[in-house]
């Protein structure tokens, strides 16, 4: 039985897993790239070993090196986190072959759910509904896809077979635009996954993205931990998640039905450990299996806050061969949790990623607030990895309390050095449609604007004008002051022009 865990990840999730290990009394091993020498996970772990260069392929994707380090330092298990090697069946297999426990599902389950066509076929056999599409058909050529498209009906989606995170995904409104979009999708899929295969899927309009968290042990027990609402996305990247879903709400019958279907999908691949079944839910509350994420999810904390379970600790217990400590009837959802993903992106500039050194940061605290992060003042946000700075999660007795708490936490949160999407979340919290739970997966892109705040929102241009004027005034005075000093050997005019050039 292992009691030393190597965490094959970085950032907030590495820190999150380290914490769970600590609380269970486990020894911890961090691995890091050259860019992450000063990262929090390196500092928090009992041991830390360098993997290689900053690029993921030279470091966090080097499964061979990671396994070698685990063996050398005597770690008995590897936790992959999310992303990187988390859903690579070959890596899970290599761990097994090296005699290491992989804290996650068996390689066969990762492989079955990782190939979307196989996944669909498998869950369909288990009686789980799927969205109409060509996924079970294998890899089709463009002319075949063009022929099948009208049968599925427009609008439809082109999706990458090996895909995820919206890469290689294109929406098609009519047949004529399809050839060009197929090209673009294949190119992007090839670049992202090294696999240009794509399939077609009917686009469910007005759809919500709702997922069910499950836990399964090695002894055949599976429970679900209720749903998470993940419809608020931009370019297929989730921005905000909550649990429960306002769309499911009081409808306990729907919740249990989705939960049971999720459990059946997991059982169909003999799933072990924590996993998530994603569903598309249409406006009539029909739900369709989208995919299964065979790993810990970014948004797992909202489920933790409403169920009171520590999912990462449960993962470790399961990997140690323990029985689940809960039966379905023991799982109760209490209150409401919301998570905002705080990204280094500028919401006022088309959400372009922002890099730089975090010079200053004040974290929100107080009742009902949790922040999962891997950054601190002095940390450099580099272009090598994703833009997630932290996850801000709040709990409230009701959804209304959770929203009010999130508003105050967002206002408290200060990050200086990079631009963040905190103002986006603040605007979202004020949006009437969000408050009313009236949104689908297209809401952020199609019906939400940073430029047009909701009516009745306190606008204070005169206060902003005073701020701007005082700052400008200070700078003018500072410049005048600097030039007045007579200590320079060159003339003030020359010096001024140099100084001005520096400011450009």
């Amino acid at each position, binding site marked *: 039985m292992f009691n030393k865990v190597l965490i094959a990840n970085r950032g907030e999730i590495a820190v999150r897993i380290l914490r769970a290990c600590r609380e269970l009394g486990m020894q911890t091993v961090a691995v890091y790239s050259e860019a992450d020498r000063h990262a929090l996970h390196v500092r928090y772990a009992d041991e830390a070993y360098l993997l290689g260069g900053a690029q993921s392929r030279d470091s966090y994707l080097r499964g061979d090196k990671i396994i070698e380090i685990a063996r050398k330092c005597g770690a008995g298990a590897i936790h992959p986190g999310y992303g990187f090697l988390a859903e690579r069946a070959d890596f899970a297999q290599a761990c097994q072959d090296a005699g290491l426990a992989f804290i996650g599902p068996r390689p066969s389950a990762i492989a079955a759910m990782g190939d979307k066509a196989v996944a669909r076929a498998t869950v369909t056999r288990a009686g789980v509904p799927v969205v109409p599409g060509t996924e079970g058909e294998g890899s089709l050529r463009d002319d075949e896809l063009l022929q099948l498209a009208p049968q599925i009906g427009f609008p439809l989606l082109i999706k990458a077979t090996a895909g995820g*995170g919206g890469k290689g995904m294109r929406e098609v409104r009519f047949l004529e635009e399809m050839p060009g979009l197929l090209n673009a999708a294949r190119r*992007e899929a090839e*670049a992202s996954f090294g696999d240009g295969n794509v399939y077609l899927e009917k686009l469910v309009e007005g759809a919500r993205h709702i997922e069910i968290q499950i836990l399964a042990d090695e002894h055949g027990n599976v429970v679900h931990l209720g749903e998470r609402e993940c419809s608020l996305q931009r*370019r297929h990247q989730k921005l905000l998640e909550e649990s429960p879903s306002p769309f499911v709400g009081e409808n306990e019958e729907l919740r249990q039905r989705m939960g049971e279907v999720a459990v059946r999908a997991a059982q169909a691949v003999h799933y072990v450990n924590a996993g998530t079944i994603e569903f598309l839910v249409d406006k009539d509350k029909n739900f369709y299996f989208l995919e299964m994420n065979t790993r810990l999810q970014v948004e797992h904390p909202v489920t933790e806050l409403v169920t009171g379970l520590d999912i990462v600790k449960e993962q470790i217990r399961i990997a140690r061969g323990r029985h689940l400590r809960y039966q379905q009837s023991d799982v109760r959802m209490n209150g409401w949790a919301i998570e905002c993903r705080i990204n*280094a992106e500028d919401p*006022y*500039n*088309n959400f*372009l*990623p*922002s*890099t730089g050194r975090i*010079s*200053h940061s004040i974290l929100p605290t107080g009742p009902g607030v949790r922040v999962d992060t891997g950054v601190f003042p002095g940390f450099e946000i580099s*272009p*090598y*990895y*994703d*833009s997630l700075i932290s996850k801000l999660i709040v709990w409230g007795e009701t959804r209304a309390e959770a929203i009010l708490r999130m508003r105050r936490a*967002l*206002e408290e949160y*200060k990050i*200086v050095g990079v631009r963040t999407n*905190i*103002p986006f979340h*603040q*605007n979202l919290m*004020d949006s009437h449609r969000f408050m009313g739970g009236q949104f689908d997966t297209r809401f952020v892109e199609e019906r939400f604007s*940073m430029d047009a*705040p909701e009516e009745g*929102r*306190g*606008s*204070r*241009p*005169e*206060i*902003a*004008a*005073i*701020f*701007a*004027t*005082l*700052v*400008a*005034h200070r700078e*003018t005075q500072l410049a005048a002051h600097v030039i007045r000093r007579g200590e320079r050997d060159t003339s003030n005019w020359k010096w001024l022009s140099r100084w001005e050039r520096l400011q450009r």
Partner: protein
Amino acid sequence: MKYVTTIGEREFLVEIVDDNTVIVDGVTFLVDFDSAGSQPVYSMLVDGRSYEAYVYPAEDSLQVLLHGTLYTANVEDEREKRLRASAGSRVAERGEYYLKAPMPGLVVTVPVKEGQAVERGDVLLILESMKMQNELKSPRAGKVGRVRVKPGDSVEQRQTLLSVV
């Protein structure tokens, strides 16, 4: 010192009398203003009301992020304002526009060619950074000038990528 500060359509006449007194459009405010160290987060007490905002320098303006709203403020002293008035309308639509990398990254594609006519909003270049493909668009119509990078190039922040004439 008197300033004219413009936010959107609104002009504010702001007079800074001393460290604690500011007159905005004829109304006097008692102000206590300070920054958190050398940070762009500023705290301001205006007649006892406490405000906190980020103030970022931008091109020719200051951006004020206050309570989740971004205000773009142009601050001019009266002399600048008069100069600008006499110079007539601005000539921003002329001259060369240099597309610079907003962040370090990898050039994925350059869908335009030198000499090609582009419209405002056309994609000039796709830059990959933080695992996202970012479309960099033309801020105005024109012709593509020299393209200085090619797909596969790694670029630094603020590196000039191409120009639009």
